[in-house]
């Protein structure tokens, strides 16, 4: 088997965790990058370099270290902005995608009556049935607080977004459409162009949950013509504790702040405050500086390898996995079984064995997969499963990892005698 696209064996060497020995004395076969990715040394070194050379509070000092900290933090923001195809001012650091999506929901909820983002009974927010809880519950609760209605795109039995009712679902009263780019359970990549066009036709804003896309394939916010995007650093080779909200400048500028406190103000009296310009208006307090620097090192690493190559590599692994797994009697793929509009996530079930037990036996072989509802309970119910076993691939996974998975699945079956 030749994988000319990417030498994942070589890439693995950049990630110290692959030296670990797992249960049963096995090497680590890490197939849970959909939950969080491993970190290359360059990211850890970038963080350490910040702490040991340039650590100071940004925005707050005029001494040399503070200047350097500012510069590091600004450079990190510029790297992220460029990576997304957006502007410096449009790129907000949060602690996670979850915070980024909550920021939007709370900011909209803070809008005064009559404002563009003000929501009231009769207004509509549209999501889909395949959303991660992080892109469902903030909107669900915003709807509850404001009296707006929550509507959603159903999915087809194959696990694709059913856009047949798009024009009735996204109607004139719709203010927000929030959809995932790639399902973290099914691997489905949602075609966005019609969704976005329709959203803008009715004057609504389009929010993209890009947690599973930004780390895995090339995207450009301007080309997509979206209004907001959220992703988490830890799924993109970056540190924990950092996420990004990208937003169209003209929209961010008229939005209410979310977290309030130091560094995001213009003037403050006891009874009133005015807000700093973008991007600081949305970053209260001493920010997660080291994590921003780490994330920028991660994105540079991804850029150096090449997002298109990474995507193709993951697709090859997915092709292998889908092929092998669907040949095993008793194994059912959950989600699309072809490679059309699909990323490197493969969910499956094994007749007679609960996903948790599948994961346990695989763990004994050093194989790390995710099992359960994957923070997408409504989707599980719709699919009629209690959970799935999910393998998710990344640039450091090799064809041998897929073989290990397939062998592991067979040993699950023999262990449980199914």
């Amino acid at each position: 088997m030749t994988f000319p696209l990417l030498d994942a064996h070589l890439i693995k060497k950049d990630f110290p965790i692959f030296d670990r020995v797992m249960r049963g004395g096995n090497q680590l076969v890490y197939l849970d990058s959909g939950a969080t990715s491993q970190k290359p040394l360059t990211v850890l070194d970038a963080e350490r370099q910040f702490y040991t050379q340039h650590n100071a509070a940004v925005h707050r000092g005029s001494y040399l270290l503070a200047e350097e900290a500012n510069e590091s933090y600004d450079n990190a923001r510029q790297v992220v902005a460029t990576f997304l195809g957006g502007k410096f001012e449009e790129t907000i650091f949060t602690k996670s995608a979850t915070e980024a999506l909550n920021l939007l929901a709370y900011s909209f909820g803070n809008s005064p009556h009559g404002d563009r983002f003000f929501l009231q009974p009769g207004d509509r927010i549209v999501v889909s049935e395949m959303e991660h809880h992080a892109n469902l519950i903030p909107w669900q609760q915003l709807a509850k607080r404001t009296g707006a209605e929550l509507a959603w795109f159903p999915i087809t039995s194959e696990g694709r977004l059913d856009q047949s009712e798009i024009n009735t679902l996204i109607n004139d009263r719709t203010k927000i459409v929030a959809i995932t780019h790639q399902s973290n359970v099914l691997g489905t990549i949602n075609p966005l162009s019609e969704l976005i066009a329709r959203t803008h036709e009715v004057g609504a804003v389009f929010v993209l949950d890009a947690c599973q896309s930004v780390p895995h394939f090339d995207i450009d916010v301007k080309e997509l013509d979206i209004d907001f995007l959220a992703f988490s650093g830890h799924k993109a080779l970056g540190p924990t504790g950092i996420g990004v909200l990208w937003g169209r400048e003209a929209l961010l500028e008229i939005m209410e702040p979310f977290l309030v406190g130091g560094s995001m103000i213009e003037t403050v009296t006891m009874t009133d405050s005015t807000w700093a310009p973008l991007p600081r208006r949305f970053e209260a307090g001493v920010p997660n500086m080291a994590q921003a620097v780490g994330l920028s090192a991660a994105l540079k690493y991804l850029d150096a390898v090449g997002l298109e190559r990474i995507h193709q590599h993951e697709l090859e692994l997915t092709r292998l996995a889908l092929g092998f797994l669907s040949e095993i009697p008793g194994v059912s793929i959950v989600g699309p079984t072809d490679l059309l509009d699909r990323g490197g996530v493969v969910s499956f079930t094994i007749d007679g064995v609960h996903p948790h037990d599948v994961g346990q036996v695989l763990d004994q072989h050093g194989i790390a997969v995710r099992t359960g509802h994957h923070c997408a309970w409504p989707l599980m119910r719709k699919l009629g499963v209690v959970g799935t076993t999910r393998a998710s691939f990344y640039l450091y996974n090799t064809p041998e990892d897929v073989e290990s998975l397939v062998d592991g699945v067979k040993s699950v079956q023999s262990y449980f005698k199914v």
Partner: protein
Amino acid sequence: MELDSLYQEVILDHYKRPFHKGLSGTPTKQVHHVNPSCGDEITLNIELDGDLIRDVNWDGVGCSISQASVSIMSELLIGKSVDDAFKVVEEFTELMQSKGSILGNEEVLEDAVAFAGVSKFPARIKCALLGWMAFKDAASQGLSQQVKGEK
């Protein structure tokens, strides 16, 4: 193999052929518990006659550990007084938190000592405890309901 300490034969047997599964009778109290991290769910009925546990039955979805655990527990607790049952629950909880340091008192726990190996797998302890926590909840509520004469 390490795995065999988790998946004892008796556990796999109860998983395949669970006892007291299927809701029936006229429960003194019914409770519904969920394990949010994995999605396991259980509905559990308890039938009390004063302090006596006349019946425990249940339904739910879950992994082998959670299913077998509630099956073995039901078998073990039916016919006991609530007080005695609570002592068993306590003993079982202790076993689960022991990180493999104890084997469990077979006098008290009977078949449930098979779960001793679970305590070495932190992610599975909640699976093993799901049914027991549901039982504890149902029994406490059932008791106080009777006291208040709500039954």
